[in-house]
């Protein structure tokens, strides 16, 4: 026992975590996940102070949680693009919008696309593409958009890429606003479908009142995505991305097919953005172009950068803070943009690497000790 405590002494929190036995880590993770699922019902003082609906002007707590998780999905996706592959994408909201519009266009009985299909195939006016089918449609559409945007533009580097992607985000929004015959233009599309589920009291399982169900759904998806994203990070793909970010020419000479991996990063990022947009559109049950302003893109980038570029948990932290804090301090209405600006500047001055910077290497702490010992004995 004393050996264990000795081993822990003087280690930083992150290293302690890496050093902890596997069952302990699993147990802690399970606790965190359980707590996350319990959050909507959090009512024990003093913890309940983190709720956003304490005052009458506050926003619905579960809805805020849902939005946080949706933005977390966005942040994980954008972290692949910006944090790992080092591609500055300022038009990420374009993919988010595409995801939301995919489900609205194909799933809503109110959408011109569905109406056209109804009259063409003689279907009833109630018919629309089922929600479950809309998911692969949304994913495919955003994936294709990612590849289409990436294929010609990924030959650009740095700032040039940022400008092109910035344009892309605006193109999607402006197209959605002006293509009246397809997207209903500025009026938007109503009756966006919700996920299927057992009905009760004549209301769908996923309805506008029980927001915590939406939150749980999004949280489950987020956990799955984190799991997959970590797999990518700890593989030859993740290393290729890092190598490209660090020195693209050297990576290329070392056999890393730069363009291919950059395109993958873009496509994966786009897919996650689309998925988040789908959840958002479905929960709102209403999609309109003004929900996808360019500011949202900047907010997404800010989440990744403030949290700690290149680290999933950093991105999650960033997404949480930048979504939660403005909602929690809604009372300060007029001061919020100011506080946001000051916070951004402070983070950039005091902690330019982000709040939770990448410490991926520390994870190999156990190996490190062992291998170093081995090597010392060998040489």
């Amino acid at each position, binding site marked *: 026992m004393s050996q264990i405590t000795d081993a822990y002494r003087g280690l930083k929190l992150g290293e302690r975590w890496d050093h902890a036995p596997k069952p302990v880590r699993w147990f802690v993770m399970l606790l965190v996940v359980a707590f996350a699922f319990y959050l909507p019902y959090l009512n024990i003082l003093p913890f309940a102070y983190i709720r956003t609906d304490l005052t009458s002007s506050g926003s619905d707590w579960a809805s805020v949680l849902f939005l946080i998780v949706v933005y977390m999905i966005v942040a994980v996706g954008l972290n692949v693009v910006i944090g790992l592959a080092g591609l500055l994408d300022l038009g990420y909201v374009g993919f988010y919008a595409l995801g939301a519009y995919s489900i609205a266009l194909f799933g809503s009985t109110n959408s011109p696309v569905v109406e056209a299909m109804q009259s063409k195939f003689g279907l009833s006016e109630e018919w629309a593409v089922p929600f479950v089918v809309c998911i692969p449609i949304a994913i495919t559409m955003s994936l294709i958009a990612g590849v289409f945007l990436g294929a010609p533009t990924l030959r650009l580097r740095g700032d040039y890429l940022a400008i092109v992607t910035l344009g892309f985000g605006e193109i999607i929004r402006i197209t959605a606003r002006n293509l009246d015959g397809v997207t209903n233009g500025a009026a938007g599309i109503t009756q966006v479908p919700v996920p299927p589920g057992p009905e009760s009291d004549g209301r769908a399982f996923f309805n506008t009142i029980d927001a915590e169900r939406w939150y749980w759904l999004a949280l489950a998806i987020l956990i799955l995505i984190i799991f*997959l994203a970590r*797999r*990518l990070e700890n*593989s*030859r*793909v993740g*290393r*290729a991305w*890092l*190598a490209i*970010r*660090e*020195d693209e*020419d*050297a*990576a*290329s*000479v*070392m*056999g*890393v*097919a*730069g363009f291919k991996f950059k395109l*993958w990063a873009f496509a*994966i990022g786009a897919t996650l953005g689309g998925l988040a947009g789908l959840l958002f559109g479905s929960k709102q049950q209403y999609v309109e172009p003004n929900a996808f302003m360019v500011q949202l893109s900047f907010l997404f980038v800010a989440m990744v950068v403030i949290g700690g570029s290149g680290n999933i948990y950093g991105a999650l932290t960033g997404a949480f803070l930048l979504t939660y804090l403005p909602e929690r301090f809604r009372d300060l209405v007029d001061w919020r943009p100011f506080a946001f600006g000051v916070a951004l500047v402070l983070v950039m001055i005091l902690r330019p690497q982000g709040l939770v910077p*990448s410490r991926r*290497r520390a994870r*190999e702490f156990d*190996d*490190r000790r062992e*291998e*170093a010992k081995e*090597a*010392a004995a*060998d*040489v």
Partner: protein
Amino acid sequence: MSEQTHAESSTDTDVVLEDTSNHDQIAIETSGEVGEVLLELDHVTLRFGGVVALNDVNFQIRRGEILGLIGPNGAGKTTAFNAMTGVYTPTEGAIRFKGKEIAGIKPHTINHLGIARTFQNIRLFPEMSAMENVMVGCDARHKTSVVGVLFRTYRVRPSEEELPESGIRRSLAKVFGISRHTLEERAGRRRSMELLRFVGIADRAHELARNLPYGYQRRLEIARALATEPELICLDEPAAGFNPAEKEDLMGLIRRIRDLGHTVLVIEHDMKLVLGVTDRIVVLEFGQKIAEGSPEEVARNPKVIAAYLGEPDDAA
């Protein structure tokens, strides 16, 4: 401590042989005979606007040799390297690797064909650990796709020693196989460690590349290049900034690299090192080849002496 061992080993042939025999795991399989032409520059000319960086350069690298490429500053040595590794495309002439024309091919494809290099001004991946740097090199030979990484779809029937020891995992691996990702990852890790040991920097394997001392960074570059299993490895001034002891050390390392089955092309300014380690030397000046031959021949060649070595007394 490792420094000393290497310094000794480079002067003592027996120790060198003993040392390499420990590294069966990282020796490469070569597909040709020693002495055949591996890489050929055939009347290569490279112009940047009005500047002629390489002018009708011809030389060959034969399998299994250590070839030195020397010349004064601006002679076009690094340009020749860049042309060979796909960074530049020659304006005229052909570069053939194993008989295949490689001019104009993308750098990563050239790497896959079997050419790797280091850089004159170290270009590691600074925010990655030494180990990860080498693993990027190993990844060049790995095949797992993005989908394979995400869903572990590609399963391989493991051999007996690849099976886990404990019960349930072992049975699972027997039934479902092991994903190629896992096996490649494991092999890459082992090979990377082996390579770091080979170049003598294994004790700091998990440190970020940017935190490593200069000498370690130079060696790490070599390890990373070796990881891609190149038949031809090009070292661009590997001894730059080294003290005499380290240079001595490096000479031993270069010989041991050749003994692993690699062919070595080395650009170097330090004449003692070049004359001591190479089998043949090609001399460039103002983008033109002015001499080629054994170290002794080159050291005696009056043109070379005039262009590069300075007074004859110093050269000998």
